[in-house]
């Protein structure tokens, strides 16, 4: 399903002028607090009537102010995980979870048991929302939206209140929703790690305007977008095929740029995965290093160097069409004599690619 959003809306203090296309997959809305992300999501859900504009899903019109069309929210079949959980206080957790079921046209969506197990909310089923912790509430809200069998899922910072362990459990499930159920997702998050892992498309919003939009690998490995995303989060996405699960717990992956070993990747040999390589995790050397603990050494060529205001430099490297970014100090760039065309070795620790930065290929 392709979602197309284009609207203008005026709040005292902020004028929004938004236009983007969300192809199938996960579209991440990324931007600072107050940029207008929630407003966009509300316009898609039908909870906000924009001053003017059009929202269509696969060609069917959801909102069109010119044609005076405004499909009410309950006919849009759009699941919405709110920033503030908004659980129904008078219903138990189980009733909250099953609420959308009453109205869903088919009943073959995700099963209650599966969602409950995934979100680890089994012991809460008979409680009411008033007796839940903040993170528990958010998990129930997530389950409720998924269980309503929507054809599009809106998620407004669904994982912000969750601890790392919970996040690590929920993220693969969202990937499966994206890939197996082919459920398109509009995802608001402050966490670049989440965005990079899940997103097929990234939309950057600043002060009510879309400043960049496009496929996730392109946006995330564009050195010019790095300041927007936060330098720490700059990185590139590498596509690799799982070659073998080796017996000491590592997974061998083959990418166009070379062979990589990473801690166990949960995928069968032959499967394609996306690896997010953070620029700050990549070290460069002009000589092949030896007797070092890093397992992954890729021979690449420098294609671009951006020296910023600060002490850092962002180096773009290519090998066989794959791109990665390396963030090093300006001092090192000068010391190593880096220049476009220079062959270098990119050094990457196996454990640097965090589990959350390995996603099912999409």
């Amino acid at each position: 399903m392709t979602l197309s959003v284009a609207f203008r809306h005026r709040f005292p203090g902020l004028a929004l002028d938004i236009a983007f296309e969300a192809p199938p997959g996960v579209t991440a809305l990324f931007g600072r607090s107050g940029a207008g992300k929630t407003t966009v999501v509300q316009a898609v859900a039908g909870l906000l009537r924009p001053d003017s504009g059009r929202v269509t899903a696969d060609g069917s019109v959801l909102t069109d102010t010119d044609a005076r069309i405004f499909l009410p929210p309950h006919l849009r079949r759009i699941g919405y995980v709110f920033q503030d959980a908004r659980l129904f206080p008078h219903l138990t957790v189980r009733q909250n979870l099953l609420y959308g079921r009453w109205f869903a046209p088919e009943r073959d969506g995700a099963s209650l048991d599966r969602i409950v197990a995934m979100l680890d909310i089994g012991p809460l089923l008979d409680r009411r929302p008033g007796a839940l912790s903040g993170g528990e509430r958010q998990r129930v809200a997530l389950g409720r939206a998924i269980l309503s069998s929507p054809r599009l899922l809106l998620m407004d910072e669904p994982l912000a209140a969750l601890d790392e362990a919970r996040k690590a459990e929920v993220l693969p499930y969202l990937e499966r929703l994206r890939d197996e159920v082919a459920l398109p997702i509009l995802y608001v998050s402050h966490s670049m790690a989440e965005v990079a892992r899940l997103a097929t498309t990234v939309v950057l919003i600043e002060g009510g305007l879309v400043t960049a939009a496009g496929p996730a690998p392109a946006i995330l490995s564009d050195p010019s977008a790095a300041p927007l995303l936060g330098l720490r989060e700059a990185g590139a996405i590498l596509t690799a095929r799982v070659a073998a699960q080796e017996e000491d717990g590592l997974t061998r992956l083959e990418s166009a740029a070379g062979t990589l070993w990473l801690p166990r990747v949960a995928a069968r040999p032959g499967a394609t995965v996306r690896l997010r390589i953070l620029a700050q995790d990549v070290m460069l050397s002009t000589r092949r290093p030896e007797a070092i603990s890093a397992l992954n050494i890729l021979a690449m060529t420098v294609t671009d160097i951006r020296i910023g205001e600060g002490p850092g430099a962002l180096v773009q490297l290519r090998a066989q069409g794959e791109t990665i970014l390396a963030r090093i100090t300006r001092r090192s760039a000068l010391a190593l004599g880096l220049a476009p065309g220079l062959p270098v070795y990119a050094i990457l620790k196996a454990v640097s690619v965090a589990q959350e930065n390995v996603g099912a290929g999409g």
Partner: protein
Amino acid sequence: MTDWLTPDEWRAVALSLRVSAVAVAFSLPIGIFVAYALARWDFWGKQILNGLVHLPLILPPVVTGYLLLLTFGRKGYVGAFLDDWFGLVFAFRWTGAALAAGIMAFPLMVRAIRLAIEAVDPKLEQAAGTLGASRVWVFLTITLPLILPGVIAGTILAFAKAMGEFGATITFVSNIPGQTQTLPSAIYAFMQVPGGEAQAARLVMIAIAIAMTALLLSEWVGRAVARRIAGT
């Protein structure tokens, strides 16, 4: 127990209960609807409706009763119409007493329910909408359960008022034992004759006992509901 009330008095007690119960039962759905309309919709004539609802509060009950007599009496426009088409007669029947009680209690009921509706967070209703619930379903599954304390409050106010209503009732349907003589009418009749005060006092006690029972019941149910919503 049966001794200290005459059969007519027992009938008045039973009638009062019936009249109040029927008045409340019939006005409740209408009251909820009107309260919802006043709380949530904007429409032409909203303030006129609002005024009409409050009218029985503003007018002396006798005037309300007289207006009812003129409208719903057998010679009144509405009364004649209802009689011809539906065989529904209010004049000098207990149904008329229920109508009068219902109308007199209506503003109290509507206001309580309206306050409760206005206190419901529209964000919850929106959330239900995104889960696929149409407006009607949202109302039935979210709004209505959340306003239950207000509905209970409105109901008990209306019931108490209906039990105590007298001026409009006696003016509209008179004071016919076993048919339209409610507890307050019976009390009135005793108050009108020398030495009737003791008799009236007995009936007053019964009225108080009934109303207090209803009140306690409503408090109890209301608390249970509120505790459910608070979630503990």
